[in-house]
């Protein structure tokens, strides 16, 4: 990473105001804005050509630390570089100003699915979101509708449970012996059909954006349904397994709960057409029950 440490001094603006009364979710922000503004005025004239900085407002919460038990937003001024992502910005803030700033991240290239945040009101992957594309100040919060563990870290257990509910593994007892080096055949068209659905990185953005999933804890949610789609539509699995999969999906809190809000499809960083997949499974389920379709 080239986010260097020896950037010009920025205000250490992550501290909460002294007065505990001021620690409401919003009030410190105003306070900071003033500070940040002042400093900016001082520095802009000389360093106009040098670089701009961006203001990020990061949600902070820690059940154990006194000043953070009441959620608040902290402001950080991060020097901007071309190509900088939201993840780069929070990493810079952590490494430079406040090492207790906590968030999940790993691959930095949109494959591990760790860093889905709620950025300026939308679920996005931190590493895949260019700062330049956002309006400032940039508000970074943990995913809504999930319990917050600390700062930007949310509890993913419920998401994983739903993923596991759809029996997310290939089921075909009839595969040839691997030592014969004989693979199952699959047509290109069929692979193409499931291709998009196999790209899910379990980031949870879709689930967080869905109002139905928020209200109904048992709803499988778009990601799990998409996972089921990935297998149900794969011709390598025998017909009876597909039927078994549809039986899981067609239960009360399965596919029928989806109200085609499309927000899952809109936020998915892997561009998976989730709503389309869910709708197709609804039709498949009905078809299975109306043998004549």
């Amino acid at each position, binding site marked *: *990473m*080239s*986010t260097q*440490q020896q950037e010009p001094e920025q205000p250490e603006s992550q501290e909460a105001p002294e007065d505990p009364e001021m620690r409401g979710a919003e009030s410190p922000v105003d306070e900071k804005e003033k500070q940040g503004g002042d400093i900016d005025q001082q520095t802009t004239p000389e360093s106009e050509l040098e670089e701009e900085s961006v203001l990020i407002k990061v949600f902070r919460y*820690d*059940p*154990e*630390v006194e000043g953070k038990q009441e959620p608040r937003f902290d402001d950080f001024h991060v020097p901007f*570089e*071309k*190509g*900088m*992502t939201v993840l*780069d910005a929070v990493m810079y803030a*952590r*490494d430079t100003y406040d*090492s*207790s700033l*906590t*968030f999940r*991240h*790993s*691959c*930095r*290239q949109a*494959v*591990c*699915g*760790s860093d889905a945040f709620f950025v300026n009101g939308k679920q996005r992957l931190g*590493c*895949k979101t*260019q700062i330049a594309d956002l309006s400032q100040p940039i508000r970074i919060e943990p995913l809504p509708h999930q319990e917050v*563990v*600390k*700062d930007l870290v949310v509890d993913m257990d419920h998401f*994983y449970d739903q993923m596991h509910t759809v029996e*997310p*593994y*290939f089921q*075909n007892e009839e*595969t*040839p012996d*691997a*030592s014969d*080096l004989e*693979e*199952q*055949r*699959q047509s*290109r068209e069929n*692979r193409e059909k*499931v*291709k998009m659905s*196999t*790209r899910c*990185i379990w980031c949870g953005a879709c689930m967080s954006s869905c109002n139905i999933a928020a209200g109904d804890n048992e709803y499988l949610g778009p990601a799990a349904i998409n996972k089921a789609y990935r*297998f149900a539509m*794969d011709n*390598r*699995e025998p017909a009876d397994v597909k039927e078994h999969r549809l039986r899981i999906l067609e239960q009360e809190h399965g596919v029928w709960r989806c109200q085609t809000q499309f927000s899952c499809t809109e936020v998915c960083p892997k561009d998976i057409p989730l709503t389309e997949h869910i709708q197709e499974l609804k039709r498949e389920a009905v078809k299975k029950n109306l043998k004549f379709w």
Partner: protein
Amino acid sequence: MYEHDVIVVGAGGAGLRAAVAADEAGADVALVSKLHPVRSHTGAAEGGINAALQEGDDWELHAYDTMKGSDYLGDAPAVETLAQDAPEDTIRLEHWGMPFSREDDGRVSQRPFGGLSYPRTTYAGAETGHHLLHVMYEQVVKRGIQVYDEWYVMDLAVTDEDDPNDRECHGIVAYDVQTGKVEGFKANDGVVLATGGPGQAFDHTTNAVSCTGDGHAMAYRAGAPLEDMEFIQFHPTSLPSTGVLISEGVRGEGGILYNNEGERFMFEYGYANNSGELASRDVVARAELTEVNEGRGVKDEYVHLDMRHLGEERIIDRLENILHLAEDFEGVDGLVEPMPVKPGQHYAMGGIETDENGETNISGLYAAGECACVSVHGGNRLGGNALPELIVFGKRAGRHAAGDDLGEPEIRTGYGDDVEDETDTELPVQPGNAGLDTAGGVAADGGVAADAEGVLEQTVERTRERVDTLMDKDDGVQHAEIRQKLQNAMTDYVNVFRTEEGIKKALRIIRECREEYQDVYVDDPSRTFNTDLQQTIETRNLIDVAETIALGALVRNEFRGAHWRQENQVRDDENWLKHTLISWEDGEPKIFYRPVILEGQDKTYEPKVRSY
């Protein structure tokens, strides 16, 4: 305390495969991983899995290519095992539902890859690793294997006999990232380390932030030697701000590299007058760095990779994902401007020394995947050879740990009568702990107790103390500062270009980092999801691992595979057909060499000039 037969540390491709194999062998298995399995860096692999599947292809050709690619530093038994087992294990992935790309007749597709004499790279679009990782995790879910995710493994419970070869591993100590509690995990049959690469030792890498060489460091301090650590593969085209990989495909299609003066330097400056941009990875990487060093780099940092002349249609048709990568991660539109690229650390050929069964010199301790060195990649890994390594040696390590008989290994491990001691290299500073209490008051190396019973408890005690010490300190240095310093040193001096002076400088800086680490403290007082604490511990591991890389690079005065030395720019088969091994002896690295095994099952691989 938790108890299982086999404990697998790390849940990337290698760890998951080991867990499934151990489960199939009847063991009660647990996976302990600092990331949820699907977050592992195996998911980033794009290219594919090498396996001789087609008619006309043959495992022997695969073995030959691998050996040649390794610049004759691979051990034949390992290389041949890889080539022999890869086809079956690849097909097994298919049976588990892996969505491989297909031919018209419905069979899996294979494509050509650098250094292969036959198109044998099996792939699933441009996201083979993602699919491999997910398919393996699905098998773990299917079998109901216990996963402890977001548990950070800090230490191994190893007995403390003087000779590391007599030590035994009885479990691990990990802390639950969510709650901060430190617990022991007893392993009745074995511990398999599958913690991935050490890419974070460098400032610029294609590896994930989680690739911090924890397994390397833990095994090393417990007494298992690290092998061939100096062999680090650098990829010539990674994006400067994140290290995201821009595949070779761009140059394959005709992409051109320019310096800041708009010169096509691969030709202008004669780095590769025949193949230009398509010269091998290390040649291109060195050319790029020379340009930057001589002041012809853009912003003194990178060069330009231009594909605009290919035309929008062709780019969108063949290189669409590259457009997205450049746009998403660098904010650059490849259709209207050239893309910035620079060399980035990509893969570590070396690792924890193991035999073909994945076992180290410490009984009950196994390693597999990128953290291990069996060694199949020797001086240089061929593209598409890491993923088969994960599944082949992951499987073998898992089975062997669970008690399956895989036969006597031919590769020997640990310090023994077949090794040669390092004698003549002069070190600039004393490496290793050298009397420093590196872990903030607790040394954390070697074993703790001779009896198998108490060892886990004592290791837990020691680890708790170590965490408490780090947490209790109120001021000092923060790990991020040390880590950055270390990474910069490695990138400046132990990168593509290696000179004796540079490496010595790096060793001095590493020593400084150790000293500074004495004063390290964790600012975040919370026990809940304390990533500050986790990273502080990782930084200690990085220091140890970086030091072995630099030491290996210093002693190996030749040019082999990915390792280039200014002083001796030729492959020196006379003196260097041997592995570099570094082991930790009471806080001091000991360097020795073990001859490479070039005798295969029925033929001997004669070193030839590596030219393609």
